[in-house]
């Protein structure tokens, strides 16, 4: 029953593309389509929650489409249900946002047909229960998001982004194809049921894990396969960016989890370090890039990479614990990963929506053209501040709760029997801690430069608050961030069936703890209570404020900024995106990005201004991707000579192939 509802919703979303094409650019089309997309997604989210809560049974269904002799298997289990919640919630809220945001689109017909279908495809990926349905919907998801990235196709940036994106998606899909090829075997047992039943050697299992890391990892943004992400996510319209960063990367993670935790069967313990290390380095790399980036949407995209790294690290921890049969810590790490997935959906969507609101209000994405928005767009700024606080893993918001769980699972590493892992996991934890600290710095920079201070451009000075729909959507997400932060136990209890389905174990029931405290293992070991922290801070802050105002002075005078006595009216004298990043750039950027600064001083007496330029290089892009591209180019150029041969030479090729085949035959005899 639940499954049928979810399938109908997905089908409705896919079919919504048809009226979207038909309506074209009518003025009401945009609002109508977005509004219509909200309903099924909300239903999907409800379906997911009810399935997790055990309302209604979880079933499978076989549709007569897809691979002919197999049909299209779909099923709803706890894991799918959890991701249905992520997709449904993220999608529905984004839909609300888009009702307002979408009006500003110049060519809505380049977005509308693809948008609902993209969501529908994601729902199907999550429900898929056989390899072909999974890959089909997966690739449809990529394809449609590619089309969405090209909504502003006149910008050459967008074209490049879309190209890199789709090629990487194709690469990832090929890896997945190979992985499923190994899983299904030569006879083509593509149904997940058959795959689960199959036995495979440790070598094959390792190969599948590696292929999944490539396939799902490239889609999620795992370094060094992440390069498309900071290009593609910002290039899309902002509500699509929100979906891509907030939801699509989660669907990619779903693919990884489904295969590695569910279908693959046992893995050797020595496979987990790769996942952990990849995850934690991705986290650090992603956030260092975010720290250097001055395009607000790009910076957010890089921060997505960071979060994906954290999630992968947590999943790797779960793998390590699972391989040694430690199901309780595995459940802890896995819950942390799922929780972070949910949280990241909420705050990253919120932040991209905020960036979209800013983009609409000012027309600018570069931090150095913004500033002072907190006075001009107060609601947006407040909501974004909530998101920024959440993503920086600050208590009492949700980002901290999941990050805290990750650290708690890191601290379970002494229970592992392998000394290698015992050493490696805390080291990886150190990387995660570094990443967490950098996140705070990066978001102080984004918020401080983008929203605080004085306006850096005329556009920012003229900015106006955005429409109600956008604000409502952002407010909803901000509320989720807060609620999940102060009631983490409830979220964890709700997702517990998904954890149980994958690992056969789950966290202790959190709802029974006094004061809704989060107690992942035992009370004497570690506890955290978001609610109380929230209450304490709120109470002590307001008490302090009240006391001070009451007992001491409450006088206040507005005056020009002090600035050590030399205030300068030019907003360019503020700290900008580049200058804020300077200390971190000097510390980490010199190594990771070969950053160097160059100062051009005019000779004495020359009144021309001195110039300070910063050069950074994207080493991964240059050393891996450009190399591959140039290799392909070189080969293509070499081979191209074959297009310009004479007929005689072509005949020689024929003769040559004939003679060599004859020789083969003669030798074979």
């Amino acid at each position, binding site marked *: 029953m639940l499954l049928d509802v979810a399938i109908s919703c997905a089908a409705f979303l896919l079919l919504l593309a048809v009226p979207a094409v038909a309506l074209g650019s009518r003025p009401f089309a945009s609002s109508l389509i977005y509004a219509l997309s909200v309903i099924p997604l909300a239903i999907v989210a409800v379906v997911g929650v009810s399935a997790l809560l055990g309302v209604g049974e979880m079933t499978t269904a076989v549709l007569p489409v897809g691979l002919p002799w197999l049909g299209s298997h779909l099923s709803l289990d706890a894991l799918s249900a959890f991701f249905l919640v992520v997709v449904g919630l993220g999608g529905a809220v984004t839909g609300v946002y888009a009702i307002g945001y979408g009006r500003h689109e110049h060519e809505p017909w380049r977005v509308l047909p693809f948008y609902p279908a993209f969501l529908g495809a994601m729902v199907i990926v999550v429900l898929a229960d056989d390899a072909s349905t999974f890959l089909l919907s997966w690739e449809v998801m990529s394809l449609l998001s590619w089309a969405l990235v090209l909504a502003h196709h006149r910008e050459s940036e967008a074209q490049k982004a879309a190209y890199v994106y789709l090629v990487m998606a194709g690469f990832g899909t090929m890896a997945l194809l190979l992985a499923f090829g190994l899983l299904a075997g030569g006879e083509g047992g593509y149904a997940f049921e058959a795959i689960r039943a199959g036995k495979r050697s440790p070598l094959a299992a390792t190969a599948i894990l590696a292929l999944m890391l490539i396939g799902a990892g490239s889609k999620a943004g795992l370094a060094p396969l992440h390069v498309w992400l900071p290009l593609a996510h910002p290039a899309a319209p902002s509500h699509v960016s929100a979906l891509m960063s907030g939801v699509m990367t989660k669907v990619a993670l779903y693919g990884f989890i489904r295969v590695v935790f569910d279908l693959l069967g046992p893995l050797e313990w020595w496979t987990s370090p790769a996942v952990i290390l990849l995850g934690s380095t991705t986290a650090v790399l992603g956030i260092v890039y975010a720290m250097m980036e001055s395009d607000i949407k790009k910076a957010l995209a890089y921060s997505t990479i960071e979060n994906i790294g954290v999630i992968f690290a947590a999943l790797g921890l779960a793998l390590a614990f699972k391989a040694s049969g430690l199901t309780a810590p595995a459940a802890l790490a896995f819950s942390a990963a799922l929780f972070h997935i949910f949280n990241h959906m909420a705050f990253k969507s919120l932040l991209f929506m905020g960036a979209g609101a800013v983009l609409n209000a000012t027309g600018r994405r570069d931090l150095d053209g913004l500033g002072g928005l907190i006075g001009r767009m107060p609601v947006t700024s407040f909501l974004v501040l909530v998101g920024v606080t959440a993503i920086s893993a600050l208590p009492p918001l949700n980002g901290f709760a999941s990050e805290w769980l990750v*650290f708690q699972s890191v601290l379970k590493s002494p229970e592992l029997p392998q000394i290698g892992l015992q050493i490696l996991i805390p080291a990886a934890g150190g990387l995660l801690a570094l990443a967490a600290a950098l996140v705070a710095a990066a978001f102080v920079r984004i918020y401080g430069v983008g929203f605080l201070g004085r306006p850096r451009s005329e556009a920012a000075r003229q900015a106006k608050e955005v429409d109600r729909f956008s604000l409502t959507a952002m407010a909803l997400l901000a509320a989720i961030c807060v609620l999940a932060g102060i009631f983490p136990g409830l979220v964890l209890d709700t997702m517990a069936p998904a954890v149980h389905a994958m690992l056969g174990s789950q966290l202790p029931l959190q709802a029974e703890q006094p004061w809704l405290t989060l107690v992942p293992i035992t009370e004497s*070991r570690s506890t955290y209570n978001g609610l109380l922290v929230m209450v304490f801070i709120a109470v002590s802050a307001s008490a302090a404020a009240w006391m001070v105002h009451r007992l001491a002075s409450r006088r206040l005078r507005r005056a020009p900024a002090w600035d050590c006595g030399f205030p300068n009216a030019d907003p360019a004298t503020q700290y900008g995106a580049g200058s804020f990043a300077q*200390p971190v750039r000097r510390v980490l950027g010199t190594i990771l990005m070969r950053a160097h600064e160059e100062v051009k001083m005019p000779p004495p007496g020359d009144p021309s201004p001195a110039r300070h330029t910063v050069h950074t290089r994207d080493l991964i892009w240059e050393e891996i991707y450009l190399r591959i591209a140039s290799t392909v180019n070189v080969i293509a150029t070499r081979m191209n000579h074959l297009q310009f041969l004479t007929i005689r030479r072509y005949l020689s090729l024929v003769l040559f192939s004939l003679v060599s085949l004859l020789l083969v035959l003669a030798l074979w005899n």
Partner: protein
Amino acid sequence: MELIVNLIVQGIQMALVVALAPLLVGLVRKVKARLTRRRGASLVQPYRDIARLMRKEVVLAENASWLFRVVPYMVFAATWVAAALVPTFATGLQFSWTADLIAIVALLGSARFFLALAGMDVGTSFGGIGSSREMMIATMAEPAMLLTVFSVALVAGSTQLSTVSHFMASPEVGLRVSLGLALVALIIVAIAENARIPVDNPATHLELTMVHEAMVLEYSGRHLAMIEIAAALKLLLYISLIACVFFPWGIATESDSLGAYAVGALAYFAKLGAGGVALAVFETSIAKMRVFRVPDFLGVALMLALLGTLLLFVSRSL
């Protein structure tokens, strides 16, 4: 009944930290002055400063936003909550389970985060310089701190400060290399986080070397007072933390008698005093670093903390 006692103890603890913090600052200043052969201000001078600031009017920059005005209270609150959760003279406080060591680190992080945002709010170059440097220092100090937490937590099997403190007080801990490394790392972090020499100079207003002070340059009156208290609280917190984790002698436990509480309180005062004197001695014997040398200094902490964590396993498996 027990609940009431516990609540009282918790309340005393909270009041105590706020009350003691300026005194600690005064002590450090006094000792530093004496060491440089000055007489120095009175021990209670920080109280006077705060009281005066409280009474003064606030001069607010014209374009300062609501955030700028809210931040001092939030910073104070977050720091206070964090400080209240660190056992001072007794463990097993009523609300100690609200947050563990990691959460305390994160609470301090929140305080710093908002302060840095406030530094950016008015849109001056000094605010920016302070914020960006503060965050840079934090990006090194916070992981070092967390790694220290890891070492301690891995030894004690808990991140709950009461449990850790109990464990550390028990004889089975012994002397461990990694704990020593962790201690050194934590001290470095504490110096950096509290903007002490050699990382920052709390007494300077020489623009280019300022970090923390540059960030709060636009604050005045009661706002500045809140920030000053918060800073003092933070210093107290770190010393309490070091004391409670590495020198848990004399600390009272949940069910102890009143006498034990008294002993605990005395021991705590002694530890605070020792910490303050040690800090003053250290600060007078060393010169301030250039800002871009700070990462190296903190890198040492990071390395030590990491080494401490790793050695934990190496030495155990030997």
